């Protein structure tokens, strides 16, 4: 049987090529909460330019990443959309305690593509729409903040039958963007560069501040690119990108 020998040889070549490719620059795998997608891409590009290291980004809901990291996913850094999950990862023994910090403070927006639909909290109270899109509140902090806002306004029970859930804030946005839902709660960062439609920046007193924490995972503790990325995230270049996307900064 000659075939298996050949396959092993070919696979060997492929692996050699892959490993060889990695060896030229350090690389780190970063799990990024979906709301931070755009700024993370910009920061990773700047990071690469400055340090030569590569930050490989994965996007999803914070809940999804938490579960995956607990199950030994190969992430070295976690940029969560909350502070609870990074704290839990530290107490689980998977995160480096002293590395945890708030890289951004999220802002919640009620947004519609229709120019006249959103007009402050009265829109929610009137409820003249068929579908309201939010992120899954158990998995995505922005979804939890949306529910909190509706409860604070006393409209949650009335609106509950109209709520559709995206698996992450990215999908919640996409439901509105495809006009399948008339409006919904999204992250301000998702609307940067988008002037259309109508929107309402939800006042901060209606929901618990969305403190977005970053944590270096034990898997990345000895990775040069991972520690460099954590430092870069605290630096002025990253901070100006984060501010540009409408986030608050912690200090």
């Amino acid at each position, binding site marked *: 049987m000659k075939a298996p020998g050949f396959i092993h040889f070919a696979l060997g070549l492929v692996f050699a090529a892959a490993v060889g490719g990695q060896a030229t620059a350090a690389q780190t795998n970063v799990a990024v909460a979906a709301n931070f997608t755009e700024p993370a891409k910009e920061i990773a590009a700047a990071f690469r330019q400055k340090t030569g290291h590569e930050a490989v980004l994965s996007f999803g*809901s914070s*809940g*999804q990443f*938490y*579960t995956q990291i*607990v199950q030994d996913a190969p992430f070295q850094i976690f940029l969560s959309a909350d502070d609870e999950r990074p704290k839990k990862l530290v107490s689980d023994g998977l995160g480096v305690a002293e590395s945890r910090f708030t890289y951004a403070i999220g802002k919640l927006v009620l947004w519609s593509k229709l120019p006249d639909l959103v007009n402050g909290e009265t829109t929610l109270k009137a409820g003249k729409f*068929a*579908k309201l*899109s939010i992120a*899954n509140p*158990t*998995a995505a902090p922005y979804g939890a903040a949306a529910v909190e806002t509706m409860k604070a306004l006393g409209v949650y029970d009335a609106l509950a039958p109209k*709520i*559709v*859930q*995206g*698996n992450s804030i990215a999908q919640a946005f996409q*439901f509105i963007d*495809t*006009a*399948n*839902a*008339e409006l919904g709660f999204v992250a301000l960062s998702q609307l940067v560069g988008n002037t259309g439609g109508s929107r309402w920046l939800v006042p901060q007193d209606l929901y618990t501040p969305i403190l977005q924490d970053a944590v270096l995972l034990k898997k990345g503790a000895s990775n040069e690119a991972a520690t460099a990325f954590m430092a870069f995230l605290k630096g002025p270049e990253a901070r100006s990108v984060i501010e540009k996307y409408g986030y608050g900064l912690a200090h």
Partner: protein
Amino acid sequence: MSGVPVEIWQPVRLTIELATITTILLLVIGTPIAWWLARSKAWWKEAVATLVAMPLVLPPTVLGFYLLVALGPSGPGGMIAGLWGSRTLAFTFEGLVIGSVFYSMPFVVQPIRNAFTAIGDRPLEVAATLRASPRRAFWTVAVPLARPGFLTGAVLGFAHTVGEFGVVLMIGGNIPGQTKVLSVAIFDYVETAQWREANILAAGMVVFAFVVILTMTLLEKRAARVGR
């Protein structure tokens, strides 16, 4: 099972409803297609067969993406939904049925087509010489002879709809009682680290899949024996 929340069973019921309605619809829509594919001499029939088979190869995300657009306000789905004053068919049970019909169609059409082809011309010619009309020959000769194909198609269509995930995740909106089917509920439980609930549903699916495949195999064996 003490302490298991009642809402865990809602997705189960919803999934069975979705799969049942989808299977019935597919038998109704799929049978004429399968018959035509088996009997027609049209040169372009294999192109139609290919279209039907496409979901076998396409990632569910492709179907999910196009369905989301097609069901929405600017697509045909939005127009249909407009008939009863709604804006979109996405996030509805009806939308899931439409998606499932496309997604599961090859699993129903192909076994039925194969069964029709296997009958051959002879029994139908005999029926014709006995003065059976084509319609009568279809119902009294072709359909009974193709019964194993119908059975396989129905079981596979049902099972495949139960196993659907990507399409539902993309067009469903995760609404309890309407679009939160089993596979999405399991995903949700896993995502939020509710292992126990995830385990109950997932283990149930494993048993279900085992029973379906075993049943299929035994049915086919029997059909082969009877056919001989």
